[in-house]
């Protein structure tokens, strides 16, 4: 571990909060870099979509001072394979990127999903050329499963079988 990583680990907190009317505006104001803009629109889409799907859980990623990002996870719906969860729409505001929030948010989401008790697999997907996402999910023990028709790389996390 490099010194600055020790520093980050000690001083930067990451929490997940349920999305509510109180933090919604802060989430809407999260900013991304130009080449990440497609993801910003996706955050509002995700919150809208989740309002019609009780099995979709939206979470604000927050540090001590407020909202710094967003993610959503989906519990299996009626049409899904039992035990299949998914993490979507992970984003961290450009002003707060590079501090480990994304990685810790995914770890927190994994922990929250495991509390549901029935998780067999947790899926995610990203553009194959998105090196940041690729490394982040690999660091969280996701294994790449392949590129699907939609052009996205799918990766899956499974609980330790032993």
């Amino acid at each position, binding site marked *: 571990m490099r010194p600055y990583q020790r520093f980050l680990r000690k001083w930067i907190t990451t929490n997940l909060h349920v999305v*509510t*009317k109180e933090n919604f505006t802060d989430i*809407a104001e999260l900013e991304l870099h130009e080449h990440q803009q497609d993801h910003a*629109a996706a955050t*509002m*889409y995700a*919150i*809208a*979509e989740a*309002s019609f799907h009780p099995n979709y859980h939206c979470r604000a990623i927050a540090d001590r001072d407020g909202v710094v990002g967003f993610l959503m996870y989906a519990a299996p719906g009626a049409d899904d394979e039992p035990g299949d969860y998914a993490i979507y729409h992970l984003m961290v505001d450009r002003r707060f990127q590079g501090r480990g929030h994304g990685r810790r948010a995914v770890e927190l989401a994994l922990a929250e999903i495991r509390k549901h008790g029935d998780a067999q697999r947790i899926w995610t997907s990203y553009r194959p050329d998105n090196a940041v996402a690729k490394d982040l999910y690999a660091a969280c023990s996701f294994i790449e499963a392949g590129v699907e028709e939609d052009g996205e790389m799918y990766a899956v996390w499974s609980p330790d079988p032993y």
Partner: protein
Amino acid sequence: MEIQLRAVTRENFDDITDLRLLDHQRDYIASNAYSIAQASFYREMQARAIYAGEQLVGFLMYVDLKLEGQPGEFGVWRLMVDLGHQGKGYGREALQAALAEIRARGGVRKIWISYQPDNTRAKDLYASMGFVETDLDEDGEMNAVLEL
């Protein structure tokens, strides 16, 4: 073609977020995804899909302003018609349908609307329906009111 307002549901919301505006119109209004997301947290906010027959053509949202401490007053906060269906009078009919829904609640004295001062189409439409301009708010939007 008959204009109808319908609820936003898990079946039509995806199509609503795909409705398009002309480039210069995009600055006039929040995205439909934003509005639907926002409305999901407030029972005072009512989102509606605008249909011409069975064709989805637009989106609107109105708000019970008791949310902002103005009981008996409503606001139409969003109204948009897809660029492929503009100029057919759908916006006017949809707004009339929304006003009828609001009136049907009873006890409503005022309905507010706001728009960018350079949005002449909005300005003319609302003026023709009896909205009277009142003031520019701190965001630079023109407020107009319909007294019932």
